[in-house]
């Protein structure tokens, strides 16, 4: 049951082979057994989850079920869920009980899905290893000494360890795709504006986008069907017709043009990851695709540009945490300014403070043109690179991450090394394009998963999911699960 696809689970629920209460209990039991090791969940509320499951069983009995009705989903702890503790991985929100539901949570509730719990994450989604969480690091189910990636590391670990049927994540610079790659699962960040950001705690608003993390592209398509849709409460939510992301899964790939950016296969890419990606490309040739050499000349600038723009937006977004209306307040202070400064110094961790300071600096008087404006101009050059490339290909492929999962503590002291681990994912957020990662084999002597990144043009999610699904029909990397689970 724990390896079943969402469609298989839906069929089992519909046929009464298992009830949603039984399925939810099965996952709760697995969480109780394994979460002390993996630390993938920050909050589990069995009573609430089982009550939702009982309600879902009624819906199933009355014949009013949708594809995800009764299916237990793990929610990243960045989404406000009414009555649930919502921490965003921070001491600042350690006791914050969300007073309302995020749009994503509403959508899953409406679909009759079960909220199985809130998953661990890097603090305020700032990190690539899940080590910045106030609540401790998450462990990678493929190797407990290794990081799961970040920031959606709890979600990736939970899916890989089969502690949920599927999960949600968010991706500002690679936070869905990189942990998906490092944990051997499938994840997609859709086009910016496709999933509402309402109730999703803001990091960098012009880049943040939510998406699903699951065992397969088919599962991701079903999840995306629930998560997407116009929401007037997010001013950047796009008014578009609701799509069925499963509609093109079955299409053959004959004639597909795959662009390989030469900048993704240069120094810095570890040889095992490069080899697995090339093998995946060879498999795509067999499936009827043709390969086109392309160039994304401004790739190397994506990291510096991101580390101006994202911290700038973060410094503004996180100014709301002042110890007045909600969140941590220092016990002792002398006056209002002292209260702000102490509350924020105590409530935020090192990485978050670092990024607030970068952002504050680049936006401060006299530096705006040199940093923020220059970064915005290069952002356009980076986006234009993709537009030019898509004139010659349908999708772009390459590695998701330069290496397999690194060990806990390995990059802890050097923020720049950590930042560079997102070199292949960040440009996609800057351009606002959809990107995904699928498992394509194992590196590090065959022990750790490697992710293949698929980048599509704007609103091409259905095509990308088709491209991923056809590969998953021809290969079985996505079905591999860690030992001992």
């Amino acid at each position, binding site marked *: 049951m724990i390896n079943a696809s969402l469609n298989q689970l839906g069929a089992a629920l519909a046929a009464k082979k298992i009830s949603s209460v039984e399925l939810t209990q099965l996952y709760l039991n697995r969480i109780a057994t394994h979460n002390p090791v993996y630390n993938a969940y920050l909050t589990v509320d069995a009573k609430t989850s089982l009550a939702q499951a009982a309600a879902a069983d009624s819906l199933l009995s009355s014949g009013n079920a949708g594809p995800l009705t009764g299916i237990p989903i793990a929610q990243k702890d960045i989404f406000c869920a009414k009555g649930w503790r919502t921490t965003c991985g921070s001491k600042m929100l350690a006791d914050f009980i969300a007073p309302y539901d995020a749009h994503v949570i509403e959508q899953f509730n409406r679909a009759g899905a079960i909220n199985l719990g809130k998953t661990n994450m890097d603090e305020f989604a700032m990190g690539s290893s899940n080590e910045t969480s106030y609540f401790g690091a998450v462990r990678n189910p493929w190797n407990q000494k290794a990081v799961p990636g970040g920031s959606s590391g709890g979600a990736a670990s939970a899916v890989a360890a089969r502690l949920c049927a599927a999960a949600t994540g968010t991706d500002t610079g690679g936070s869905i795709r990189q942990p998906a790659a490092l944990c051997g699962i499938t994840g997609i960040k859709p086009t910016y504006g496709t999933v509402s950001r309402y109730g999703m705690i803001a990091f960098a608003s012009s880049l943040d986008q939510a998406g699903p993390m699951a065992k397969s592209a088919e599962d991701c398509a079903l999840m995306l069907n629930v998560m997407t849709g116009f929401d007037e409460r997010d001013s950047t939510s796009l008014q578009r017709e609701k799509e069925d992301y499963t509609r093109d899964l079955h299409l053959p790939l004959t004639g597909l043009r795959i662009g390989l950016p030469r900048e993704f296969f240069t120094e810095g890419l570890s040889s095992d990851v490069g080899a697995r990606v090339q093998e995946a490309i060879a498999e795509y040739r067999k499936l009827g695709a043709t390969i086109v050499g392309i160039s994304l000349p401004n790739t190397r600038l994506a990291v510096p540009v991101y580390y101006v723009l994202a911290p700038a937006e973060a410094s503004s977004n996180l100014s709301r945490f002042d110890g007045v209306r909600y969140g941590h307040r220092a016990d002792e202070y002398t006056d209002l300014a002292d209260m702000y400064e102490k509350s*924020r110094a105590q409530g935020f961790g090192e990485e978050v403070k670092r990024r607030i300071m970068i952002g504050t600096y680049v936006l*401060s008087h006299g530096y705006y043109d040199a940093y923020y404006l220059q970064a915005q101009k290069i952002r356009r050059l980076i986006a234009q690179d993709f537009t030019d490339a898509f004139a010659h290909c349908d999708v772009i492929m390459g590695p998701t991450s330069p290496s397999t999962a690194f060990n806990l503590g390995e990059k802890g002291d050097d923020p720049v090394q950590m930042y560079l681990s997102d070199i292949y994912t960040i440009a996609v957020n800057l351009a606002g394009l959809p990107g995904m990662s699928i498992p394509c084999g194992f590196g590090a002597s065959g022990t750790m998963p490697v992710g293949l990144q698929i980048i599509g043009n704007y609103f091409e999610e259905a095509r990308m999911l088709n491209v991923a699904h056809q590969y998953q029909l021809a290969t079985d990397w996505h079905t591999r699960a860690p030992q001992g689970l």
Partner: protein
Amino acid sequence: MSLSTADVQKVARLARLAMNDTEIEAARTQLSGIFELIAEMQAVDTTGIAPMSHAQDLSQRLREDKVTESNQRELFQSIAPQVEAGLYLVPQVIE
């Protein structure tokens, strides 16, 4: 690029983050490293390039100027650090 101690102190104050001398020095070293990475941008000629402020080149939607939120003061104040008589309490700022 190397930041001075005074630069970091100024930024910490603007960001409302209390930091002691040890933390300021640690931040100075790390921020200097990050700004070295960021400095790679400066060599790029961006003359005539329009800044891209957002992933969508769309103007923001407008809505009617009417109240859409219901009053949930009690719910919202139930998670506040300190409230009294429906008001958020902060240290006195006016003598």
